[in-house]
């Protein structure tokens, strides 16, 4: 019960901060806020499939990229509103996720081999998009600027911010509801011991695929947002391993398999990166060294992440 109160309290504080923040910040600070939220959304997406269901993905860029490309191609080539394109992208990503999952689980890939397969699929998509004329190849796609809300474009970045915030809140509420219901409890059971879960009648394959589909769809949503907000995408960015890592890191810093972990993780890592960028201006790479050191430190000394460790302590778990 204490755990629940702490969780709700933390989330409430985070929410309040997130709502007030854009009114206190300038253009630059707002863009940092959007980076935080985007990472949080990617983190929550990864959290479902890897944090809760325990299927370690190293290729979330595949879904992110598909989301970005689906909406952008539909918009630029066919004039379809990116709002609808976003839904289409989510559907495509979910399908691809289910396909990757089905093949991997069918051939009983586990652990790091599963991670490597997801990475390989993301790389294949990168090469495919980079070399296919019909998909604009390496030139990428420039989203023409119009200030029309029905086309997912806004002159005011604050609106972008709040739309992204709404997405993060929706994803978080979804996970919160899920974790107390059959689906969520069974996903944790699958993560802890797949055989035991199966022997209790849990539809293991179906649930794992469902988790992948939902996770992929959320990553695709983040992809569409990225395309609309930044206005330009190309395969080397949206399908890059860096995006896949961006989905993982907030969960590692904050705590995978927890409701607030990825949010807290994103809130720590993005400002830290910005700070080191500004401090060591002109020296490329320092921010990434800090990033690397953080990953190493957390993996070695705080494997459950900050939020995850607190929750475990509250529940009285063995460390």
């Amino acid at each position, binding site marked *: 019960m204490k755990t629940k109160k702490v969780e709700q309290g933390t989330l409430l504080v985070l929410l309040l901060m997130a709502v007030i923040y854009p009114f206190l910040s300038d253009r630059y600070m707002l863009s940092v806020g959007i980076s935080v939220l985007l990472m949080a959304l990617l983190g929550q997406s990864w959290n479902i499939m890897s944090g809760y269901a325990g299927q370690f993905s190293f290729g979330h860029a595949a879904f992110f990229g598909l989301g970005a490309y689906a909406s952008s191609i539909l918009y630029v080539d066919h004039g379809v509103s990116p709002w609808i394109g976003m839904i289409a992208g989510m559907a495509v990503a979910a399908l691809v996720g289910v396909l990757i999952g089905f093949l991997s689980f069918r051939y009983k890939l586990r652990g790091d081999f599963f991670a490597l397969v997801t990475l390989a699929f993301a790389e294949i998509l990168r090469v495919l998009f980079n070399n296919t004329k019909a998909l604009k190849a390496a030139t990428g796609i420039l989203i023409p600027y119009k200030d029309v809300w029905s086309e997912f474009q806004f002159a005011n970045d604050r609106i972008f911010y709040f739309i992204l915030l709404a997405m993060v809140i929706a994803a978080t509420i979804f996970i919160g509801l899920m974790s107390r*219901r*059959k689906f969520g*409890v*069974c996903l*944790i*059971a699958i993560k*802890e*011991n797949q*055989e*035991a*879960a*199966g*022997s*209790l*009648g*849990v*539809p*293991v394959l179906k649930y794992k695929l469902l988790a992948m589909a939902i996770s992929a769809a959320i990553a695709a949503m983040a992809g569409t947002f990225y395309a609309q907000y930044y206005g330009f995408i190309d395969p080397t960015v949206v399908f890059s391993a860096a995006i896949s890592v961006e989905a993982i890191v907030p969960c590692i810093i904050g705590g995978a*398999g927890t409701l607030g972990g990825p949010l807290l993780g994103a809130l720590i890592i993005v400002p830290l990166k910005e700070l080191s960028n500004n401090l060591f201006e002109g020296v490329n790479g320092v921010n990434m060294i800090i990033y690397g050191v953080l990953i190493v430190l957390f993996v070695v000394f705080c494997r459950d992440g900050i939020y995850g460790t607190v929750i475990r302590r509250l*529940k*009285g*778990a*063995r460390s």
Partner: protein
Amino acid sequence: METLKVIDVCKSFQGNVAVDHASLDVKEGEITGLIGANGAGKTTLFNCISGYYHATSGKVIYKDQEVQHKTAEKLCHMGMARTFQIAKPFGMLSVLDNVAVGGYNKANSRTQAYEFAEQSLDLVGLIDKKENLAQLLNTGEQRKLELARALATQPEVLLLDEVMAGLTPTESREMVELIDKINKTGITILMIEHIMPVIMKLSHYIYVMERGKMIAEGIPVEVANNPKVIESYLGKGLEVE
């Protein structure tokens, strides 16, 4: 009437035969025991029955259907549940949630799943610990949790794989009573056991396995006096309590 029939099941791993033409019948409402030395193939046979492995050849008939190709999940829906020799608790879930995972098997709602879970926990005597994390339970409690989870699936047949392993004498006695109690509620049981007095006391009928084959069967008294069985248990006669 037999709820479960195993006919001529073989299972080999890359040429190594672990179960060799084994057959057994489990009668409805009874406790059937399966004994044998370490490595006799009992657990492998169990795994073939419960859908964890697929038998290389032979048939498993459950409720008049061939089920040797069905998965553990399907069998669980059909009313067959099992426990594992090494308890496999979902460590980061609470005891209640652990059992609720089983409860969802037959439940139509979340409330009902948790009702099933509470009932099972009550039956095995773990209800006081329902809020605890499963990883904090001791060995005896983990066994009970394992049993409670299987019970929550509302099984008609329960397969128990060495539920006494690692228990203190007091815990063992409790477990014997518990299994008897479960059987009296109408659940058919097939159990593997190492501790002879336990299985002799509980079982209605016993099968003996050695090197993958069934070497004897019968009611406890017959099996205890069967020369082949005595031989395979180091020449010592078995006592029936």
